[in-house]
């Protein structure tokens, strides 16, 4: 029991230092430093806003379409940062792994936590946009932490899986790049869900993706209750349990895979 406590103590100490180091190193030698974690998504947002809202005049069928778009983008960015960033995380620490015995999951967890800090900063910007655009706040906003938790679990599950897989198969990063590109278009981030044809259960299938469910629910909770959610797509509330179940199942499988593989990281890198 004491040993267990001791091990957790070590993990927490490690986690704090890894996150701190990550932040220190990430924007080192860059002129604007930490500001980039804000500027980058904002710049992307401006591009998308100009292209889709101003030029293509996409109709989102919702009020506050700028904030609506920004929320989707911010959530997507978090997902991308965690998963793509995790792939090389274990291999990149090879030197450390060969010389030190430490809980390997702290590496992946540290990446997720620093992305989470970025997400928090980005959500502050979303808040500022909401004030500027006079978006009303409703009781649903209390669900936001739960949605972020779901996103956190979903992203870290994939991060565990990808980082462990990359140790053995160095093609993973290329494959994941393609998958991310496809997933970006398969998720209603910059196009409205209603733009998906209603036939062939296409909308229903799109919404089974936990990422689509989370983003739409998030928009529903903080921007407008006119957002079509998974419950709307299926016309049934219980369906929301499916993406959550997928997330949990994925977390269990990825977690045990990572645990099993992590013993051999040192010799396989």
């Amino acid at each position, binding site marked *: 029991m004491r040993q267990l406590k001791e091990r957790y103590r070590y993990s927490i100490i490690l986690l704090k230092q890894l996150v701190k*180091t990550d932040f220190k190193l990430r924007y080192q030698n860059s002129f604007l430093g930490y500001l980039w974690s804000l500027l980058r998504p904002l710049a992307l947002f401006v591009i998308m806003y100009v292209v889709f809202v101003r030029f293509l005049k996409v109709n989102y069928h919702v009020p506050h379409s700028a904030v609506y778009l920004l929320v989707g983008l911010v959530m997507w960015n978090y997902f991308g940062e965690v998963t793509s960033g995790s792939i090389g995380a274990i291999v990149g620490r090879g030197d450390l792994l060969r010389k030190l015995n430490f809980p390997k999951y702290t590496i992946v967890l540290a990446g997720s936590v620093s992305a989470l800090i970025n997400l928090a900063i980005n959500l502050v910007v979303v808040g500022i946009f909401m004030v500027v655009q006079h978006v009303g706040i409703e009781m649903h906003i209390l669900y936001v932490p739960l949605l972020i938790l779901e996103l956190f679990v979903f992203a870290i599950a994939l991060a565990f899986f990808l980082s462990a897989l990359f140790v053995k198969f160095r093609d993973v990063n290329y494959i994941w790049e393609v998958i991310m590109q496809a997933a970006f278009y398969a998720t209603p981030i910059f196009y409205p869900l209603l733009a998906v044809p209603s036939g062939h259960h296409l909308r229903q299938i799109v919404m089974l993706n936990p990422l689509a469910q989370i983003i739409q629910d998030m928009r529903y909770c903080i921007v407008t209750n006119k957002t079509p959610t998974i419950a709307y797509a299926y016309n049934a509330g219980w369906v929301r349990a499916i993406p959550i179940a997928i997330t949990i199942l994925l977390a269990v499988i990825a977690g045990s895979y990572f645990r099993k593989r992590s013993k051999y990281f*040192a010799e396989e890198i």
Partner: protein
Amino acid sequence: MDEVAIKVEGVYKDFRLPHEQAGSIKNVFTHALRSIRKKRVYDTQHALIDISFEIKKGEFFGIVGRNGSGKSTLLKILAGIYQPNKGNVSVDGRLVPFIELGVGFNAELTGRENVYLNGALIGFSKDEIDAMYQEIVDFAELEKFMDQKLKNYSSGMQVRLAFSLAIRAETDILLIDEVLAVGDADFQKKCFTYFKNLKQRNKTVVFVSHDMHAVEEYCDRAILIEKNKIVVRGSSREVATAYTRMFLEQNNSNGQLKTKEKRWGNNAVKYEHISVMPEKLDDSGHFKVLTVAKVNHDVEEAVFGFSVRGTDDKRLFGTNNKLRQKRQTNLKKGDQINIEWRVPNILNTGNYVLDVAIQNEDYTEVYDWWEGASKLLVERSEENSYPVHPTIEVNIKKES
């Protein structure tokens, strides 16, 4: 006192070396296809074979062996970095998780930031480091450099900082791999003081080293690993002796030292024959180096010299006839010069190389330069691990 700190039972470790570079999906497919036809696509290398030993609490335990014998793999298994394929390692007490100094040091961070990072890796919280920060810096003597990036540190400075941190690790069992190989004499002195201190505090230490002197001095017991097995176990003295013998025997069986023979010069004066008497040097006070040289062209003066070098390529001693005030001038073609050097044997057990040379009087011209002209094989009856072994006479009178 006789409690066991580390118990290693029948540990095997294999490494699988793929024939081709695996590690891409394509290879998995092609390998999958191939393994239907042919079973093996990789070689198995046995890094450790049936290793068993026990280390008692408070013991200073040495692991010695040549490069590639498997001792570092064993240390990594003890640290939990590698998993054994078979067998079991049980550890009672807290063990340092690192096997090298300065793990995780980042060149882009300042000295101060690295102290906190490395400190966390060896298990210290920020508050704990805060409390001992000044001590760490003082011990490393780097006060003025702590806000500079580590990439601007010399390697000696990095080692000092790493060592200063590592010795704070308050665990029951320490693993030390070749720390003595780095750092200057001053730093090594600090290491030794630290080891003495560890012994006094009754810490369990596993010590991997090539330095038989250090092994004999600090270790209570040791094992010798050769070709991935334990070949000798016992007191540190026994193991150190066996290790030195092993080197000697291997060199004898090879017939040649690793240093190759090299010879050049303009041959104006050239050695015809070199010999060392006796063939095998023992405790008999002196040995002789006999050389025969022939003059091929008239020269004003020739200086004949020799030096003795150890297997580590360090020159130990040497001289020439000019230094010894026996100059040879006005040499004519056809002359033959016979020289006999009588040398007191201060060499310790081991293999040595004899280099000889002939040059002109101001050493600007090489007539004959012959490295590895002869071998010296020394076997002394008394065992010790000092680099030299003069025969020391002792007179003791006891008065009461």
